[in-house]
C-alpha cells in the first residue's frame, strides 16, 4: 500500500485508528517528492521539517480528538498563490520571491483544522497567468505522463504532484480553467467550485470576480471530501456565501439514472481534436447505457468566451497588481532615482513578460476612451454567456464539454504566440464568467497523455458534478487500465 494514490478518506480513517501513523504518511510523501521532483519540478518549496513536526504532533493526539478531522494525517500540497503563515508564498514571481506572509489563508486554516499536513507549495504560471506552467520565474513544471509535455496550468504544479502520486490531495485556484485544465492534462480530478463557495481570503488576487480555490485529487470521492473542508463560511471574504458543501456517500453510489446531460453543439464543433472527441463520445455512450439522458442544448455565445474573458481578467488583474510597488512587501529595485522611478523599475524587474502583457492589456481596456468599448462591452457579453447557461439548465442537470481542445502540447510549443495560448482556454473560461461550478475528470488517453471531460452544473450543484464525475471514473476505469 502506498497510501499516496489511494482515496484519502480511507487513509485518513486508518490514520485516525492508528493503523498507520501521520509521520509514516508524511514521510512517504516527502520521499516520493525527493525522488521525483528533480525531474518534474511540481514544487516551488517543500517544508519537510515543519511537516514531520506536525505529523508527530498529530500522532500524539488522543483518538477522541481525531474524530472531527476528516483529513487526519493526509499530506497536502498547496498552490503557491495561497498564503501560508511563516512559509514563503511567491506566486512564482520574482516580485514576491522573498514574501513570507504573516497570516494563513482561510483554506489553509481549514486544512489544518481538518488534520491535514501541508508538505509544500506548488509551482504555477506567474500570478496564475497562463495555461502551461511555463510562465514560472522558477522554471516550468513537466507532465508526469511525459516530461516533454506541459502539465497544463496555471495549477500545473498541484496537478502534477497529485498525478505523480507525490500527494493524494492538493489545492489549486481557477480563474479561467487553472484547476480543470492541468488536471485534464495530467490525468487527475479537479473542481472549480461555484463562485462564492470557497473563501478567497488569502488567495493572492488575480481577477477577483473569477478566482476560486478548489480541490485536486486522484479520486472523485476525495474532491467531495476536500470541498466539504474548504467551503467553511468566512466573514473575511464578502463574496463567500457561507454555503458549506455537505459530502455524502450517496453521491458515489454510481446512480446517474435519470440525470439529463446537455450536449452543446457549439462545444463539439470544429477546432476539437479527434483525440479528445473520441473518448468523450465513447463516455457519453456509456453514460447513456447507465441511464443518463443526453439532451442537445445550445450555448450561442460560447464563441465570445475567450474575448470576454481576456478583457475582464486583464482589467481586474491590472487593478489587483497595482499593489506591487516595492513599498510594503516583495522585491524593490536597487537605487531608484525617485519614487515614480522606483515603481517603474521595480515592476519592470519584478514581473515576467506574461504578467506585464496582461497588466498592459487590462490598463488599455480600462483607460479613458476605451472603457465603454472594451470593458463594459465584455461585461455585457458576460451577462449573455451566463444567460446561455441558465437557458441550457432548464433542459438538463449538467452540461458536458471538453476541457481543452487537444491533449497537452509540448513544452515551448506555444510560448511565442500569446493569443494561440489564450485560445486553448475556450472550454473552461465560460464557467468562471457565469460563476458556475465545473469538474474535470480523466476519461481516456491519447499517446500516453491523458484526456479529460468537463461537466458544468448550475450554481451550488457540485453534487451533480460529483455524481457524474464518479460515474465517469467508474465507467472509464477498465479502459484506462487497458
Amino acid at each position, binding site marked *: 500500500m502506498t497510501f499516496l494514490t489511494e482515496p484519502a478518506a480511507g487513509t485518513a480513517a486508518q490514520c485516525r485508528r492508528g493503523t498507520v501513523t501521520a509521520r509514516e504518511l508524511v514521510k512517504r510523501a516527502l520521499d516520493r517528492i525527493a525522488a521525483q521532483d528533480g525531474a518534474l519540478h511540481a514544487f516551488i518549496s517543500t517544508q519537510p521539517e515543519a511537516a514531520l513536526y506536525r505529523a508527530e504532533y498529530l500522532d500524539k493526539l488522543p483518538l477522541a480528538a481525531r474524530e472531527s478531522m476528516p483529513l487526519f494525517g493526509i499530506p497536502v500540497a498547496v498552490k503557491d498563490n495561497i498564503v501560508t503563515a511563516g512559509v514563503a508564498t511567491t506566486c512564482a514571481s520574482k516580485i514576491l520571491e522573498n514574501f513570507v506572509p504573516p497570516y494563513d489563508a482561510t483554506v489553509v486554516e481549514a486544512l489544518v483544522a481538518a488534520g491535514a499536513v501541508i508538505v509544500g507549495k506548488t509551482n504555477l504560471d506567474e500570478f496564475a497567468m497562463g495555461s502551461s506552467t511555463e510562465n514560472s520565474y522558477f522554471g516550468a513544471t513537466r507532465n508526469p505522463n511525459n516530461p516533454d509535455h506541459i502539465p497544463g496550468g496555471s495549477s500545473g504544479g498541484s496537478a502534477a504532484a497529485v498525478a505523480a502520486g507525490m500527494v493524494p490531495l492538493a489545492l489549486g485556484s481557477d480563474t479561467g480553467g487553472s484547476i480543470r485544465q492541468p488536471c485534464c492534462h495530467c490525468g487527475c480530478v479537479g473542481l472549480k467550485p461555484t463562485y462564492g463557495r470557497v473563501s478567497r481570503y488569502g488567495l493572492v488576487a488575480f481577477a477577483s470576480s473569477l478566482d476560486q480555490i478548489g480541490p485536486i485529487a486522484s479520486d472523485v470521492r476525495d474532491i467531495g471530501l476536500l470541498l466539504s473542508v474548504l467551503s467553511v463560511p468566512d466573514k473575511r471574504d464578502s463574496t463567500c456565501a457561507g454555503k458549506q458543501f455537505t459530502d455524502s456517500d450517496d453521491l458515489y453510489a454510481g446512480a446517474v439514472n435519470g440525470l439529463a446531460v446537455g450536449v452543446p453543439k457549439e462545444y463539439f464543433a470544429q477546432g476539437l481534436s479527434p483525440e479528445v472527441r473520441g473518448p468523450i463520445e465513447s463516455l457519453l455512450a456509456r453514460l447513456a447505457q447507465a441511464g443518463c439522458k443526453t439532451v442537445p442544448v445550445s450555448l450561442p455565445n460560447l464563441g465570445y468566451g475567450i474575448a470576454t474573458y481576456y478583457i475582464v481578467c486583464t482589467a481586474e488583474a491590472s487593478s489587483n497588481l497595482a499593489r506591487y510597488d516595492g513599498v510594503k512587501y516583495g522585491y524593490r529595485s536597487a537605487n531608484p532615482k525617485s519614487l515614480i522611478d522606483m515603481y517603474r523599475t521595480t515592476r*519592470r524587474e519584478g514581473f515576467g513578460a506574461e504578467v506585464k502583457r496582461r497588466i498592459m492589456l487590462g490598463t488599455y481596456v480600462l483607460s479613458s476612451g476605451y472603457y465603454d468599448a472594451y470593458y463594459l462591452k465584455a461585461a455585457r457579453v458576460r451577462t449573455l454567456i451566463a444567460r446561455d447557461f441558465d437557458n441550457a439548465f432548464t433542459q438538463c442537470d449538467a452540461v458536458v464539454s471538453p476541457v481543452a481542445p487537444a491533449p497537452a502540447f509540448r513544452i515551448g510549443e506555444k510560448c511565442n504566440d500569446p493569443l494561440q495560448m489564450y485560445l486553448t482556454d475556450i472550454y473552461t473560461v465560460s464557467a468562471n464568467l457565469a460563476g458556475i461550478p465545473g469538474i474535470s475528470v480523466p476519461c481516456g488517453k491519447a499517446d500516453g497523455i491523458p484526456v479529460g471531460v468537463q461537466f458544468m452544473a448550475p450554481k451550488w450543484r457540485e453534487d451533480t458534478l460529483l455524481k457524474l464525475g464518479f460515474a465517469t471514473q467508474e465507467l472509464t476505469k477498465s479502459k484506462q487500465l487497458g
Partner: protein
Amino acid sequence: MIDKKIVQHIADLSRLSLSDEETEEFAHQLASILGYVEQLDKVDTSNVEPTALVAPARDPLRQDEPTPSLPPDKLLQNGPKVKNGYFAVPKVINQ
C-alpha cells in the same frame, strides 16, 4: 491602432518601464489580441445589463465590532525598506 506611442502611454499608466524591444513586441502582440477581441462588436448588447460580479444579491453585513488584527511589526517584516516603524521610500518632496 496600437502603435509604439500608445504602448508607451499605457506603460506609463501601468507604472512599467519597457525596453525598446518590449515596446515593439507589445505593440505587435496587443494589436493581435485587440484585433481578436473586436469580434465582440458583432454581439447585440443593447438592453443587456453588464455583469461585474456574479455574487450574492446583497452584500452581507456584520456587526461593527473590533476584532484582533495583525501587529504593525509583523506587517512591517516584509517591507523592503523600513525605518522607525514606517515603510521608507525615496524622497518625494524637494525643498
